[in-house]
């Protein structure tokens, strides 16, 4: 457990730093009167028009989803790699089946044009 002591120290320091900055900035902040104009986005003095929430292509979302799926696939490689010397051929076959099933999905995504930007 002592191995994670450094993590705990970082955690405590982070909480203290952020808390300290928030408290200090609140104390030092001159209490000016608020004005709605101050909260607006600054666009070189031009009054902003339109909405920041413009529709974005669903492809960004699909790309992120696909990344996540292969991210999880790679996570499974870690426990496999550290015991590979014990499993040898059997472990290799097990992983080939796992990766093979996912490769089907990869080629399906490729064939459907998930990696194209049109």
């Amino acid at each position: 457990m002592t191995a994670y002591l450094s993590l705990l120290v970082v955690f405590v320091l982070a909480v203290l730093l952020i808390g300290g900055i928030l408290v200090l900035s609140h104390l030092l902040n001159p209490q000016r009167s608020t004005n709605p104009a101050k909260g607006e986005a600054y666009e070189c003095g031009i009054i902003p028009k339109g909405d920041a929430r413009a529709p974005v292509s669903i492809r960004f979302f699909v790309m992120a989803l696909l990344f996540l799926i292969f991210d999880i696939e790679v996570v499974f490689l870690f426990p496999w790699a550290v015991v590979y010397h014990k499993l040898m051929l059997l472990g290799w076959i097990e992983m080939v089946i796992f990766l093979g099933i996912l490769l089907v999905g990869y080629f399906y995504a490729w064939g459907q044009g998930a990696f194209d930007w049109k």
Partner: protein
Amino acid sequence: MTTLFWLFGVLAIVGALGVLFQTHPVRGALFLLLNFLAIGVLYLLARAPFVGFVQILVYAGAIVVLFLVAIMVMDLRRLESDFDLGLMGFLTFVLGVAFFVIVALVLLKNQIPEVSPPPTGTPEALGEWLFGQYLVPFELASILLLVAIVGAIVLIRRRRQDVS
């Protein structure tokens, strides 16, 4: 160690409640982040370092970021207007309460064994379990991921049909 368990246990619950009761989507996602991080630390405390770090990397790192991107992409004002779930909301509530009651009954009826686990969450131990005793669930996980890929592709396909 018990102190840390209570600290991060309470933080996890605070995060979960925040997700439930926060109506602002971005704040809800950040509460989810708090929940995931606290659970990651709980895994560490349960001597499962690999699971703990994967929890923080994949859940806190990737999934919450994906949620935030999805929130950014969606038109939120339209979501807020039809927030009333009607019958589905009621059913969800009933099923949720039923699930909670069942879990509570199981926990009360059965003695939870005092665990002082061997380091089962190290990558080595996990690998031996996954590629030995639990090989079938592991291979099934790949099929689950395949379904997720196909589900993601469907999003694009429907879009394309609309255009043409």
